[in-house]
């Protein structure tokens, strides 16, 4: 099943074009990895999917991005509703400087998802359990989230993202600031999360893309060079550039 369908997406920063004609289909309940050298536009593309580029004044997006067959670049699309459905985890862990509980309950609170304290407690607990953080923090839910280790903070951010039960989770290099053990934990978590969510992950590590994803898209200089199943991209790419990047000849 195709969850997201991007058609001829162009992105401009002022006069400079950052993405050229990107068309990409993303499968539901699978992990899609976006790889490519720095500055190739993979993060920009990711931020198109929940319209985070709106925040940047000079950035403009053209083309269609259909999520559940609805064009999110359409004027009638409400960004608040869109971002409720499409969660995001950033490169650097960015918990709010509030308690763990407040971090996870923030989304459900502003979207009015819990009628009572018990319901909220439940949401917080299940979100933290799904983010594999519950056992480590259940006794200190009311301590500041910024007091956790880097890996724990990133899992807290994942718990925060899934607390509103999004259909899609966007991950922008979620492990680049973490050590190998924390990275392994997050990767395991991604594998678990794909059962309920569609996941798109931007990564610099080809090994990580190979480990966690089913589909891979390779970006270079603002163009989507090639995309397909991860197996095919890594073992038998069609394009010479992809081949060169995968084998480490540039990037």
């Amino acid at each position, binding site marked *: 099943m195709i969850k997201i369908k991007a058609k001829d997406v162009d992105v401009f920063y002022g006069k400079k074009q950052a993405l050229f004609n990107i068309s990409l289909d993303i499968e539901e309940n699978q992990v899609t990895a976006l790889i490519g050298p720095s500055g190739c536009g993979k993060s920009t593309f990711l931020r198109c999917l929940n319209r985070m580029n709106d925040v940047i004044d000079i950035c403009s997006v053209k083309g269609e991005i259909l999520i559940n067959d609805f064009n999110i670049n359409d004027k009638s699309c409400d960004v*608040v509703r869109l971002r409720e459905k499409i969660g995001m985890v*950033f490169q650097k862990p960015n918990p709010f400087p509030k308690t763990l509980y407040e971090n996870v309950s923030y989304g459900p609170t502003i979207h009015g998802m819990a009628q009572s304290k018990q319901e909220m407690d439940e949401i917080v607990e299940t979100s933290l359990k799904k983010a594999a953080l519950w056992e480590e923090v259940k006794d200190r839910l009311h301590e500041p989230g910024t007091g956790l280790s880097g890996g724990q903070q990133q899992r807290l951010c994942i718990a925060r993202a899934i607390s509103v039960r999004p259909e899609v989770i966007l991950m922008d290099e979620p492990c680049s600031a973490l050590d190998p053990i924390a990275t392994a934990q997050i990767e395991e978590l991604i594998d678990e999360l794909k059962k309920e969510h569609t996941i798109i992950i931007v990564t610099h590590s080809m090994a990580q893309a190979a480990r966690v994803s089913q589909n891979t898209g390779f970006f270079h200089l603002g163009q989507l060079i090639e995309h397909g199943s991860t197996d095919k991209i890594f073992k038998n790419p069609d394009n010479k550039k992809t081949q060169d990047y995968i084998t480490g000849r540039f990037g």
Partner: protein
Amino acid sequence: MNKNKEQLLNKRYKAEQRFRLYGLSAIFMALLFLTIFIFKIFSTGYSAFQKTWLVVPVTFDAELMMLDQNPSKEDLQDADYYDIALKSMADLDPKANEDQENELKRMVSYFFEKEIKNELLNDPNLIGKTKEVYLTASDDLDQVFKGNYPRDLPEDQRRVSDYQLKIFDQLVANGKVESKFNISFFTNADSREAELAGIASSFMGSIFSILVCLMIAFPVAVLAAIYLEEFAPKNRFTDFIEVNINNLAAVPSIVFGLLGLGVLLAIFQLPRSTPLVGGITLSLMTLPTIIIAARASLKAVPPSIREAALAMGASRMQTTMHHTVPLSMPGTLSGTIIGLAQALGETAPLILIGMVAFVNTIPGSPMDPAASLPVQIYIWAESAERGFVEKVSACIMVLLGFLIIMNLFAQIIRHKFEKKWS
């Protein structure tokens, strides 16, 4: 080659040492000036916190006070105290002639009649008896007792006559002159008589001005800062506003005083000399300071926090109100306090809007005429009487204490509530 290198290295070390020395001497100079300044103020001002009293026996003679037998409270209120007051002063020297009696009277404050009256009102049983009453010494004798008065000047150049000094020395020898903590310095309003003048009016005036200033400047500045930082598009117009806010911060304060005079008093007809007008004028001055501080602390909130909130589906307003503004509050508040501290020490604009008027009542609201602490310093510094010299320093001490407390508070807020980012 090697030798050359070593020379170069030595030179670099020497240059560094010299540089450190310059820095140290700069700090030393600053500390020296500060010490001299503080020492001067304290050594001149501390004596203002003491007040000299003459202990004079007063006979509460019912006849002289025109009182009947068994007088009521009202009778005591209305009784004539001038004669017994005069008599008790004249009795200090039984051989005094009329001129000398006059001089004796001037050894205490003109308030002495009231002090005697209060004594009797407190204890009506005193009628017909004699009691030693504490009377405020005149400001000149106060200075004599504190050792600040040039006794060796020729008599015609002094306000205290030889006769008064003679009687005063007798009183001192008999232990009838006492020095006590000067409560009236804090409870009295300004007065033409140095011994009675206090800072209550100017202190309350300053407090009211600062409150008015805070209530106007803080909300306006914070809203302006939030709009400019979080919502306004970046274009020529907002650049223009930004430049002008910075310009506003550099405008000399007296210009704001003229603005207050021309607009608030002349056009809006607000009451002259009041903390209300003073506060509004000061708020114009404080506004840019708070805006700049608030914008700086909004800018200091990492963009990742905004992104996190937006990505959770918070609207821009929610992102701002739930996250950015609370996180920027410590910086904004300490900037506000520093802005208020500046306003507290401001003199020129208040002089222009008439807060320099002689006010001998304590204001009960921002609509009552009042002075302010720095203006009070200015008024007293202009006065000729010797008694005001120590008052000026004492008033400076109070103002400085006030400022130090405010700045301390700003520091505490900044350190205690500042969030650490992950």
